[in-house]
């Protein structure tokens, strides 16, 4: 019933694509106590490619994202980066390998302001001699650049993010992931709280990231628009494993939804 | 604020005598001996650094004399130094204060208290037919100057018996902060440890002996089954135990006497006459100097001389006998 998009088919897809995936997870298992959240899930991400990760609620998408990001260590399975086995068991491992993540729960520090959250963990600092003084001014300027690129220049940068609206918070989390130059960006339901126009901007942003040669993974429930129109490849998850794999340009929303709920079991529409 | 000010600095409020007896006695005595001197009382609540602040604040208010009962004799040197720097004479009251300049020391000799406790215990134990006599020692707060002196005094009499095998010390422990509850748990566990076979509990003050008595009561013993000795302070509660036969004795320190002598010394200094030479009957070495001392007599109160307490005006029979009116002694004296 599980059908993998074998690599050649994916490679045929979008333009800027190398033969070795940037990151590749195979046969990942992960349990929480008695809950078997991932039972052999796999995913590849190539440079320049936008992979959509879709599936019903509780299918294991966020868990897979967290394994990719090093938040959870997998119980078993392989994790390769640019073709070489890699150990990614903490978020800083992932960061080191150039993986940036937007989490479904955003993972912001509510008591810090937007600039502090944007740069958290990778502040621009002065000399070690002065204890790593934060170059607040530079941070602020860079933050403004990114925010205006996302057309968010009217968002206050010095209020604690805990006091912001759901969409504002989500925008900050997204801005955060693209602030530095990662190789892979993973976004878990990035547009859930965004208005139509903001979501469109994020879709454009994601495309421009891929065009710059980054690998992008997006979890989304917006199958009919965002997933079929703005991604390159679609991985469908069901019950903690891959259920199907499609090239986005070949499918309709209905086909994807059917694969998600199991209506088309075993049918591999990829390639 | 025109009156000359004298400060009486108390150590803590767990040893209640300072707050409830010494202070009022001293204030009363001063009113008599130096009516235009204002006495200010402050309590360090057991904290030496708080006491240091109180010394500094006293100096700031222009203290003429500081009557000091140190919160911890070992951490009082800074207080003495501050006073010396400001030229304020310090008279030590009861507790020692190690490592600094003091004008005089009015004290019931702590060593003498320990000796009284040890002597009485040794007498009673020698009189016992059993050998070895099993003894539990419930000592005071570890590291305190007083505790060390009481222990040394007791040991002068107990050591020989221990060495000769007459006494077997089966349990021995310091009591954190002199807390009677801790003393009680310790006594209970000691009884358990020895299957009830403990003959004597030697305390260091009425709090520690009281803990032992409460332990005996809670374990179902009767008065006289075990010997509880080594009380100190002649608290009313301890005297009741003595009257009932739960406890053998308590060392009486007549606080009124002490307060009066202290008032004499202080009044004399305030009047510019210095420490009255005639009162000095010894010296206490506090590692910095030999402090001229006014040693006061102590006496051990047992069932036989319970009336001394009443005679000295410390307690009345009515106070002592409250709740135990049916005991022989009380029937006789009420």
């Amino acid at each position, binding site marked *: 019933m599980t059908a993998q998009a074998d690599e050649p088919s994916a490679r045929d897809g979008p333009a800027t694509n190398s033969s070795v995936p940037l990151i590749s997870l195979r046969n990942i298992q992960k349990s929480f106590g008695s809950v078997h959240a991932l039972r052999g899930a796999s995913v590849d991400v190539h440079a320049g490619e936008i992979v959509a990760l879709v599936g019903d609620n*509780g299918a294991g998408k966020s868990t897979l994202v967290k394994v990719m990001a090093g938040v959870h260590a997998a119980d078993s399975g392989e994790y390769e980066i640019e073709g070489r086995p890699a150990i990614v068991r903490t978020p800083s491992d992932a960061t080191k390998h150039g993986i940036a993540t937007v989490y479904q729960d955003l993972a912001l520090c509510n008591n810090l302001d937007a600039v502090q959250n944007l740069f958290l963990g990778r502040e621009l600092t002065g000399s070690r001699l002065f204890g790593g003084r934060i170059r607040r001014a530079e941070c602020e300027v860079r933050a403004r650049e990114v925010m205006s690129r996302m057309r968010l220049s009217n968002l206050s940068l010095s209020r604690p993010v805990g006091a912001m609206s759901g969409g504002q918070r989500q925008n900050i989390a997204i801005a955060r992931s693209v602030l530095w130059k990662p190789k892979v960006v993973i976004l878990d339901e990035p547009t859930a709280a965004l208005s139509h126009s903001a979501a469109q901007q994020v879709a454009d942003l994601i495309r421009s990231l891929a065009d710059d040669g980054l690998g992008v993974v997006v979890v989304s429930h917006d199958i009919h628009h965002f997933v079929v129109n703005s991604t390159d490849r679609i991985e469908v998850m069901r019950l903690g494993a891959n259920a199907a794999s499609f090239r986005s340009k070949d499918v309709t929303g209905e086909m994807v939804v059917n694969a998600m709920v199991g209506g088309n079991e075993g049918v591999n529409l990829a390639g | 604020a025109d009156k000359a000010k004298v400060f009486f600095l108390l150590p803590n409020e767990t040893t209640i005598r300072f707050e409830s007896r010494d202070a009022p006695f001293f204030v009363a005595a001063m009113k008599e001996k130096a009516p235009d001197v204002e006495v200010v009382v402050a309590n360090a609540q057991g904290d030496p650094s708080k006491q240091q602040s109180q010394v500094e604040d006293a100096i700031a208010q222009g203290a003429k004399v500081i009557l000091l009962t140190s919160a911890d004799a070992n951490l009082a040197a800074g207080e003495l130094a501050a006073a010396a720097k400001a030229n304020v004479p310090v008279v030590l009251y009861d507790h020692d204060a190690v490592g600094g300049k003091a004008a005089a020391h009015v004290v019931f000799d702590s060593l003498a208290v320990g000796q009284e406790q040890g002597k009485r215990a040794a007498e009673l134990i020698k009189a016992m037919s059993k050998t070895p006599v099993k003894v539990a020692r419930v000592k005071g707060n570890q590291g305190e100057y007083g505790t060390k002196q009481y222990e040394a005094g007791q040991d002068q009499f107990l050591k020989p018996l221990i060495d000769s095998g007459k006494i077997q010390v089966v349990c021995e422990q310091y009591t954190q*902060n002199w807390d009677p509850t801790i003393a009680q748990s310790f006594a209970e566990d000691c009884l358990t440890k020895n299957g009830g076979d403990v003959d004597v509990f030697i305390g260091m003050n009425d709090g520690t002996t009281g803990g032992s008595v*409460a332990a005996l009561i809670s374990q179902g013993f009767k008065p006289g089954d075990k010997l509880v000795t080594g009380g100190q302070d002649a608290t009313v509660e301890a005297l009741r135990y003595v009257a009932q036969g739960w406890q053998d004795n308590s060392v009486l320190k007549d606080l009124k006497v002490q307060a009066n002598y202290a008032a004499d010394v202080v009044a004399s200094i305030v009047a510019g006459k210095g420490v009255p030479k005639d009162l000095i009957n010894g010296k206490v070495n506090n590692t910095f100097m030999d402090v001229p001392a006014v040693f006061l007599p102590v006496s051990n109160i047992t069932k036989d001389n319970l009336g001394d307490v009443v005679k000295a005006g410390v307690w009345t029979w009515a106070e002592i006998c409250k709740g135990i009116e049916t005991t022989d002694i009380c029937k006789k004296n009420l």
Partner: protein
Amino acid sequence: MVSIPASAAPKRRTFGELLGSDLRALPVVIGLVVLWIFFVVQSDVFLTPRNLSNLLLQSTVVGIMALGLMFVLLVREIDLSIAAIHGVTAVVSAKLIVEYGVSPLLALPLSVILGAAVGSVSARWVNWIGVPSFVVTLGLGLALNGIQLLLLPATARFGLMGTGVELIAQTTIDGIYAWLAWAIGIAFLALLILSSVRRRRRVGLEVSVIHSVVLPLVVSALIGAVAVVVLNANQGIPLPVLIFAVLLGLGGYVLNETQFGLYLYAIGNNAEAARRAGIKVPRIRTAAFAIAGGVAAIAGIIASSRTLGVGVFSGGGVGGGTLLLESIAAAVIGGVSLFGGRGAIHAALLGALVIGTVQNGLNLMGVKNEVRLIVTGLLLVLAVSIDKIIEKLTGQQAY
């Protein structure tokens, strides 16, 4: 399936899962057992009925204090005044009894009410101004310490011998009566369990008889029976221990079965969510503080009955001293979180037993005071570490 279907009773549950629900107490118990083994090796009297009775009795006051405090900790607050409440209420009731000749039957309940009232005063201040409860109860505690000193007579002590209060500590329930008490306890538990099983059956939910009826009943009956046998081998069940047991039972009922108990957990985890759910958060908070105060007063009565009097020391002295620290420590060692919303009733019992065991055991070993402090510290950490290591190995997660 990823999520377990609610209707299918899971046949085999992982050990971790069991720990998460029915056996929540196990890790701390293991920590305790390790301590016991240590002391059994060190002292041959440790396991005697007499000593175990002692140990239980010595743990009651701190245990009861911790039990009351739990209610406050659950709602993410702290009450530093419980020791002072314990002291001042004990002094008030002793004063009433000794000086004014009030009957203990009136004075003691009154002191419990007073304790609850004082507790609710802190809560009101916390609710109203929003001052952290740490500061409010610290200040209130000091003020109560002062009041306690004011209330004491010049003798600094009210003796309670002969007033009837001492009977609380001295009464023991032994022989057949002890078994009667045991039977009543088990009967209540059975009633409780059966009533929920009946109800589940009636609405058509399946119940595993072994798992939800037999197991808890047998385990409780066994533990109770062992306790009764041990205590009967000495003098019987001391009344303070029985009072503690009853309070534990009541507390467990309130926390696990009632709406109020649930609200404590909800507020501790997410007070804003609780408020949005229409829960009167200030009212629940006030009740929690009142319970802590009332229960502290009960502990104060037992303590004064045990020490046969009240004085400056009642309530641990100024600042709460050892009593306060041990009460908080007992709750935390038993698994109550200082950050709210987490902890079960057994925490009070187990935490107090851990502390009591260490002290009792070291008394029996007769080690020097310095060593004693060092060992106490290390054993406390050890006991809780075992608990955490087990939790970690079984992959438990806390919310």
